[in-house]
């Protein structure tokens, strides 16, 4: 079973982004970039499937600028066997990414695609579901446990109020939630090894996909900021404020 793992290069989760003064977007120049944390979980899961003998090959793919190669090298250092970059400088939106991934999934004849449930930059939570729809495959989103059983994947999902388990027929799409696994630390020898692994570059044109954005960002602004309140001296002071000032208890 071949597994495809799409990964996205995003602003590192520890960075607090700033809105550009012309309000055209957020300033990401000279900001630390990393692999989207949910995608790291996806690479880890695929790697574990390979280590367990369930998967035969793990292919990482990223869509975007040339620097996404770094993200793909990280994926290969975790355990992906090879990688492909669909390179473009056009701003990619989830629908376009899903179309590119469909083309790659078909080209590579994969049976399973594992993706992060959302990227921490645009917080869209769309790509996996869209890819499933375009391929006509079933989806198991927000996964916290994955068991491959023959022609099916049994997936436990994080839903409102608890967990549910579904069974999807392969080929299928799985999107990862936080508790699926804890990604391993990437070791130096594996980083060195990853440098020698195969990394192909494709273009949206080669894949026959129109990636023109459908959504235009008119303006990006700072959210209304919440000002810090006061410190109270003790519990009695707190209760007094809640009762008599805020009147919430």
């Amino acid at each position: 079973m071949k597994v495809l793992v799409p990964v996205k290069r995003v602003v590192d989760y520890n960075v607090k982004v700033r809105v550009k003064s012309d309000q055209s977007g957020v300033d990401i120049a000279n900001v630390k970039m990393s692999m989207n944390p949910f995608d790291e979980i996806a690479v880890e899961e695929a790697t574990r499937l390979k280590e367990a003998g369930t998967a035969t090959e793990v292919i990482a793919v990223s869509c975007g600028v040339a620097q996404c190669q770094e993200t793909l090298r990280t994926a290969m250092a975790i355990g992906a066997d090879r990688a492909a970059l669909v390179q473009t400088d056009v701003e990619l939106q989830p629908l376009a990414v899903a179309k590119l991934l469909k083309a790659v999934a078909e080209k590579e004849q994969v049976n399973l695609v594992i993706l992060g449930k959302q990227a921490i930059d645009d917080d869209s939570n769309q790509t996996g579901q869209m890819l499933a729809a375009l391929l006509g495959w079933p989806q198991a989103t927000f996964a916290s446990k994955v068991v491959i059983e023959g022609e099916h994947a049994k997936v436990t999902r994080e839903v409102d109020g608890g967990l549910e388990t579904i069974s999807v027929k392969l080929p299928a799409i799985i999107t990862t939630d936080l508790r699926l696994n804890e990604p391993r630390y990437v070791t130096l020898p594996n980083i060195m090894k990853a440098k020698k692994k195969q990394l192909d570059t494709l273009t949206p044109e080669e894949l026959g996909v129109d990636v023109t954005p459908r959504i235009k960002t008119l303006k990006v602004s700072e959210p209304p900021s919440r000002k810090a309140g006061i410190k109270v001296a003790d519990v009695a002071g707190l209760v007094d404020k809640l009762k008599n000032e805020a009147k919430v208890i």
Partner: protein
Amino acid sequence: MTTLVIAEHDNQQLKPATLNAVAAAQKIGGDIHILVVGGGAQDVAAQAAKVAGVASVLLADAEHLKDFLAENVAEQVLAVAGDYSHIVFPATASGKNVAPRVAAKLDVAQISDITAVDSPDTFERPIYAGNAVAIVQSSDEKKVITVRVTAFDGVAAEGGSAEVKTLQAVADSGLSSFVGREVAKNDRPELTAATVVVSGGRGMGSAENFKLLEPLADKLGAALGASRAAVDAGFAPNDWQVGQTGKIVAPQLYVAIGISGAIQHLAGMKDSKVIVAINKDPEAPIFGVADYGLVADLFTAVPELEKAI
């Protein structure tokens, strides 16, 4: 211009998230219809028909729709999508699961998690964990939208008298099947709908210590929440998680206990009306957003607070 709102429900009760989504649909303008997809969900359709401002309710009811499998629900929405300018889902686990599937099949870009409607094609949505707000305009003819429920005050659950139309259920896709559900059973209000939320962070120290929050939550009639750090450490279940990657809440009162206030946690609770923080570290970022901060050891302050209320 007519908007279709996809109902959030459990085959028995229409969930309040639906009322928030209808409120967003009202801001868009035009007629509003509600689609109920479920199994044995006639009561839900009857409740939906009473929702204020709703012109029509569509019910697709079948055994293979009762577990809300994304493949089947999306097909059911697509079966009627042609009649609508806007298709609106609440941004719940279920809405987020199905909406992109519908959007992709219609070849339209989805607008996720909107917090305001500026015009029928222009919406506001938070990005970067709420550290920026984008105003986005869709060039697609049909708009597929998910609505951040805490950003819109729900419409009245009563007052309408729409007629319920029964749709022919789509065929079972056969691609997926439901195995089981583990729903935490307790008497507490649902986290996203609660008026008071008591949340614990890594400062709680252990899953055992999290129980310390229960008497306080009981007294306040609160839902229990947790930071991602506490969930990652195994102190609390993931469905308690408040934050960018968990649930977005905006209660009247949010009590953050032993929570430092990471960006990703603040993204999930900073729209709460009143925020209280109890933390022994006076420099904790949570105090930067708290209306009332108490620098104290939570193990003494929490029981004391519970007694004092």
